[in-house]
């Protein structure tokens, strides 16, 4: 009995007056909830051809140029080597969508062939919708795979510097 009395007395000593703090928190939360933005904005950086010349760091011209050509009904990969360019892969549009997964896988293969290559060019026909351009740029910059038995999605970078141009 004496011990219980002692405990209660101690408990009363530790009571905090929380009402004002709670009011403050409620006001803060409602304010932040109203002003907060949940869709986050990121940016796709472009590497423009004009900017590359100004650097002057690269003395020798690159031997290989990788170009992805975005056409109205297909997406093609073109490889220029020693002045000759030829189309090495072509993925027709299936239904409403470009086959970006296959494109990414092919580009990843190219990346493994030319390890130190970081730039690629995207050539676009004028009537392509902007959204598709962004998606193809995504596919050129990275591939996303989920390993079997793993929920997490891995991003594997491919060509981080993408420049844009007109399709021939």
């Amino acid at each position: 009995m004496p011990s219980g009395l002692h405990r209660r007395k101690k408990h009363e000593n530790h009571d905090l007056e929380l009402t004002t703090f709670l009011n403050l928190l409620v006001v803060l939360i409602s304010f932040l909830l109203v002003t907060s933005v949940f869709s986050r904005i990121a940016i796709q950086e472009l590497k423009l051809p004009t900017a590359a010349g100004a650097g002057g760091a690269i003395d020798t011209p690159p031997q290989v140029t990788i170009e992805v050509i975005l056409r109205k009904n297909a997406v093609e990969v073109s490889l220029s080597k020693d002045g000759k360019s030829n189309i090495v892969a072509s993925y027709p549009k299936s239904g409403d969508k470009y086959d970006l997964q296959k494109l990414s896988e092919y580009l990843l293969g190219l990346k493994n062939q030319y390890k130190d290559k970081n730039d690629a060019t995207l050539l676009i026909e004028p009537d392509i919708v902007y959204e598709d351009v962004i998606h193809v740029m995504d596919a050129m910059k990275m591939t996303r795979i989920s390993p079997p038995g793993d929920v997490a999605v891995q991003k594997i970078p491919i060509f981080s510097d993408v420049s844009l141009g007109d399709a021939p």
Partner: protein
Amino acid sequence: MKRMRRNKPGTIPLSLTSLMDVFTNLVFFLLLSQGVANVDEPPKEIKLPDSYVDVKGRASVNILVSNELISVQGEPTATTADVLNAQSDLIPAVRDKLLLIKRASTGVLDKDGNDPNQEVTILAHSQIPFKVMKKLMMTCTTAGYTKISLAVRENSGVTAPPKRN
């Protein structure tokens, strides 16, 4: 407190600690998630395309492209239809506006005499034909803005990519 309890015997004091914890966590979460936005949210009629890149936006000159209007730094400058139908790759109105902004900004020149503040972010609606974007980008480079970024809505990758086979 003591008097309240004495007035009403048998009332149980509220345990507010867990509620406070939740609130405090919420406040920190909201404060942190707010601090990262550098690019302003575009108006409702502009729906940015989704992308998986995670490069955060930087403060720069903004160009908004909706279905009807092209605005530079919030000021309507040209109509999208005009740009779409124009023959030349240069949009004079946008170029003049960009040059005006460039002249007004008292940027510090770097050692080569160039203005380092040459960045422009284009926030465009996802259904815009690329032709318009190309003309805009050409105009930006002509006006001296050589670093062009395209704003996208960050897709955090919650939706799984198609399985490999």
